[in-house]
């Protein structure tokens, strides 16, 4: 009886233990399922976003050209070298520079030739099945179509031209160059100051109220909304130091201020990750603290520092809000020649295009976003590569 009871009890214990185990396993499966679901959802959003962007952007990479006769036989009438009747088809970007073209190429005078030139964006959109045309223009387009006087080419204007009000001629060149200037300045400003501040705070500074206050403030600054840095840039850089409005240097300094806390925080984290034994070993060998930092701590923490800096730069690259206040979100089609010239950046260009009424700008906006994403992915890939290449484990 006793034995039986214990036996039964034992079995009962086993049973509840089994049941409990199963319950725990079920809970785990549930949890894993939820996690996978979350991941799938995030992935689906990403695919949806990228997919719709690519689909919207693809048409922007081709552009319609039209074959017309250019007639310079009457040099005084160069402005009508292409029959003004075709103004509804040929881009104004082509016709308005005809006199300049003759002036720059005097050998063209008296010549008459056929040439493929840029077509208007409305024609391009119509051929891609979007938008509508006036009756008269549509008939002409159909005639041209039959005569084979249209063709698609790669839209190189997107990369060789600056911003334009004519969608067919609108390009990203000025914005790309502007972005390079601004990023170079941001880097030149934020990297040395950020790394040096972090080294001092981490390696040399005493741990007291003052350094603690500095630390808390830096951490707070990293979380400050970026528009506030724009206000700061406007008040300090432009109004106080007299840096020219809209210039690359105003943008670089403002974004540099914004990136600084990120560089400091990531550098400090990277320095802290270097084991103390390394420092102690160096100090024990008679190295000064500066030698220890220079020869041992800094090289070992470099991958982390670079990763942090590049991520900070990538964030600065995608920023528009602070630039709005210092006048860099504007119509600036010329490639800047110096850091004091007016410049714009890629996200600002995207923002401007998104608010244009013409249909052709919809696909161009998407294309510009793709270009920006590509650059950002390249930057982040560099960060990953540097980390992999130089990472050390202890």
């Amino acid at each position, binding site marked *: 009886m006793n034995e039986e009871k214990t036996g039964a009890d034992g079995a009962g214990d086993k049973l509840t233990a089994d049941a409990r185990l199963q319950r725990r396993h079920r809970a785990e499966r549930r949890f894993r399922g939820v996690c996978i679901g979350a991941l799938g959802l995030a992935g689906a959003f990403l695919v949806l976003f990228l997919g719709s962007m690519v689909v919207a952007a693809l048409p922007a990479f081709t552009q319609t050209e039209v074959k017309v006769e250019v007639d310079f036989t009457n040099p005084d009438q160069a402005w009508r070298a292409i029959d003004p009747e075709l103004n509804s088809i040929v881009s104004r*970007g082509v016709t308005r520079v005809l006199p300049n073209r003759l002036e720059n190429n005097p050998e063209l005078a008296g010549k008459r030739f056929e040439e493929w030139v840029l077509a208007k964006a409305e024609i391009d959109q119509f051929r891609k099945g979007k938008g509508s045309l006036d009756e008269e223009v549509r008939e002409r387009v159909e005639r041209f179509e039959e005569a084979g006087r249209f063709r698609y080419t790669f839209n190189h204007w997107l990369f060789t031209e600056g911003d334009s009000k004519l969608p067919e001629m609108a390009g990203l060149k000025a914005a790309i160059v502007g972005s390079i200037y601004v990023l170079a300045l941001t880097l030149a400003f934020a990297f040395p100051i950020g790394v040096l501040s972090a080294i001092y705070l981490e390696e040399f500074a005493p741990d007291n109220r003052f350094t603690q206050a500095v630390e808390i403030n830096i951490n707070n600054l990293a979380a400050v909304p970026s528009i506030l840095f724009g206000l700061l840039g406007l008040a300090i850089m432009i109004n106080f*130091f007299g840096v020219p409005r*809209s210039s*690359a240097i105003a943008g670089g300094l403002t974004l540099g201020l914004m990136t600084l806390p990120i560089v400091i925080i990531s550098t400090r984290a990277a320095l802290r990750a270097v084991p103390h034994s390394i420092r102690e070993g160096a100090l024990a060998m008679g190295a000064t603290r500066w030698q220890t930092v220079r020869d041992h701590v800094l090289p070992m923490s470099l991958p982390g520092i670079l990763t942090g800096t590049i991520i900070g730069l990538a964030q600065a690259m995608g920023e528009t809000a602070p630039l709005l206040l210092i006048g860099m*979100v*504007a119509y*600036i089609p010329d490639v800047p020649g*110096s850091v*004091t010239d007016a410049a714009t950046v890629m996200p600002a260009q995207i923002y401007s295009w998104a608010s244009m009424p013409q249909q052709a700008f919809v696909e161009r906006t998407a294309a510009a976003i793709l270009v920006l994403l590509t650059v950002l992915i390249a930057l982040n890939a560099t960060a990953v590569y540097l980390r992999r290449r130089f990472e050390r484990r202890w």
Partner: protein
Amino acid sequence: MLQGYSAMRRTNICLIPLAFAAAAAAAVTGCTEGGGGNDNGNGSGDGGDAAAERSQIRVVGSSTVYPFSSYVAEEFGATTDYSTPVIESTGSGGGIKIFCEGDGLDTADITNASRRMKPSEFQRCADNGVTGITEIAIGADGITIAQTKDQPALDFSLEQLTLAVAAQVPQNGELVDNPYENWNQIDESLPDREITVYGPPSTSGTRDAFEELVLEAATEDMEGYDEPYSTVRDDGPYVSSGENDNLIVQKIENDREAVGIFGYSFLEENRDAVAAVTIDGVDPTPEAISSGEYPVARSLFFYTKNSHLDRVPGMAEYVELFISERMIGEQGLLRNEGLIPLSAERRETVRERFTQRESLRLEELKD
């Protein structure tokens, strides 16, 4: 061997920050040298002086005028040897504020506005030493009410539109919170459709104009309002939809019952999807807007800082190109961009005014 390896590793690593800093520094010095060249060697290169030698015209102001202004700027840059002016879209008020900051060359040369300068703004300009401003009218802009193309045609009177979007409406002799939810509650003749109006937010110049040209104009002599009323309802039927007019067009394409409020150029660009609602039976055609027959229209302006005309190369030429027949004329290029031309007579007055460099006076703004 291990030591040798790590030593090599270390030199490698140490090169990176050097290379980083060097590349950045090279980019920067390269840029600055380029800048010196651009300044024709006159600029001494430091921040303060860089602004004193300027090769680009600087324009700020209204987002409504921005497309026209940048179109002219592009044409100007492409067909002359001057560099393309920089056009910033800051809103009319913001533009005038920047314009009036001072007379120095580090301030804007021209400000665009979708309304006239206010006397207080003129006063601020004068206090900061900005005198000699010429006012130039370039044309008109119509604010259109539109719906999707497949809906039956609609016609609103200003009063009906006001009753649909005002925060308070008169009922039995007193003002009460707007109770209307369907158009046919306002007037039997209107269709049985829910009132949904997508329009610009309160920060927009278009909204200011809408409030002034529709609500204030209608309530001025409507029974029940003691004085012109301009508050738009915020209980749902009026949906503020962001500064971007494209968004409003998209919204009425999706919400087929709704109507949207946006600038004339957006109607013109989207004729295949949306159609205009007539106001008091008038269709917003360029002719009707220009003649003032279409009631929801406003004039567009820009203001030039005349002391800069001699100091900023190309500024006078830019203004002359802008007010030329080729741009703002009856068949001008800006017409395709949605600008409604002024009458021939007024265009002539504007040109005359600029040739004379006629200064704006405070009394002109007060009426």
